């Protein structure tokens, strides 16, 4: 159990997807202007990460490993993620339209989110996690992703009112925030 917690916290804070692993940076800069949007995006990514981890774990365990074709992982995982996103979109729309209208637009962006493919590759190929470990990693990664997105959007909302130099406004200053966040998060190193 403590292993799982370590993996969870490790993925959330120490090996944070955005700040340390450099995965999912496009939404980090693209969808972080408003807190609401950022949190929605983060939660949608977390959800897809978990589901994708389940499915890809099964595929890895029962197809890729038995046939010794781990090198096919990229092709198969991305295909699976793409269809998963579609089916989730459909499912949410059918069952909860309010949720769909809140999350729908983000789902489309998730297919091309490095973090989702990244987590499946890390779990199954790089670290060969067991099933519970995969879950902990996906959940931790997603939550860390959401947390950083939320922090970033909070900061950017404030920066919008700031007298930032013209050529720093928007993206460049967001990168500066990224740098300082990465520095600050490096303080978590070794806590677990």
């Amino acid at each position: 159990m403590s292993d799982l917690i370590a993996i969870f916290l490790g993925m959330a804070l120490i090996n944070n997807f955005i700040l340390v692993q450099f995965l999912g940076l496009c939404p980090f800069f693209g969808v972080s202007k408003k807190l609401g949007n950022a949190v929605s995006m983060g939660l949608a990514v977390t959800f897809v990460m978990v589901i994708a981890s389940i499915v890809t774990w099964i595929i890895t365990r029962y197809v890729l490993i038995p046939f010794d074709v781990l090198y096919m992982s990229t092709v198969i995982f991305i295909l699976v993620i793409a269809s998963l996103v579609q089916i989730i979109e459909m499912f949410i729309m059918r069952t909860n339209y309010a949720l769909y209208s809140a999350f729908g637009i983000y789902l489309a962006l998730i297919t091309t989110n490095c973090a989702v493919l990244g987590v499946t590759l890390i779990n199954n190929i790089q670290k060969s996690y067991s099933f519970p470990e995969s879950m902990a990693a996906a959940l931790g990664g997603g939550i860390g992703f959401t947390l950083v997105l939320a922090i970033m959007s909070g900061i950017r909302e404030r920066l919008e009112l700031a007298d930032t130099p013209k050529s720093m406004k928007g993206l460049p200053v967001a990168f500066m925030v990224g740098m300082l966040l990465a520095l600050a998060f490096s303080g978590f190193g070794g806590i677990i």
Partner: protein
Amino acid sequence: MPEALRKFTPIMFLALIVLVAITLLSLTSSITTPIVEKRIQQQVVDQMKGMFPDVVEWNEDDGLYTLFADEGKTDFLGYAFLATGSGYSSSGINILVGLEDAQTVKEIVILSQSETPGIGTRAMEPAFLDQFIGLNINDVNFIKNGGQIDGITGATISSSAIVNAVRDTAMKKVAQLEGAE
């Protein structure tokens, strides 16, 4: 084309693409895999030879190499095996460990790593690695944990990855040896 079938064209199209893709990949992999395997083998052998210059022949048993200095496999030289530590970077540190006998480390060599340059890579320098030479595998541990190895400030993660990987794998291999006997 009948109407019912037409519905399935998109699906079949995707299936076709997947089929082509996978076949292509299988082909590529069948070309590259032997190269990779050979290279790794070669690397291990090269390093082993660097470690035990006299080596001529060896046995391999589940990753544990038993090395001999003559063709007849009678002149025992030592053992060698691969250890993988998980360091600061998400890809691991691959270490080749040579043992003089079932207790003593002869040398360790880093085969591949991708630690942070300037920080983690300080654990790849001889100043650190040379500490392992001649150590009893039970002493492969940091001084503060009762071993004989000095850690590296600023690279705790990388250095302990190496130390732990070497010790744990060595223990395992030794157990494997004992089990085999």
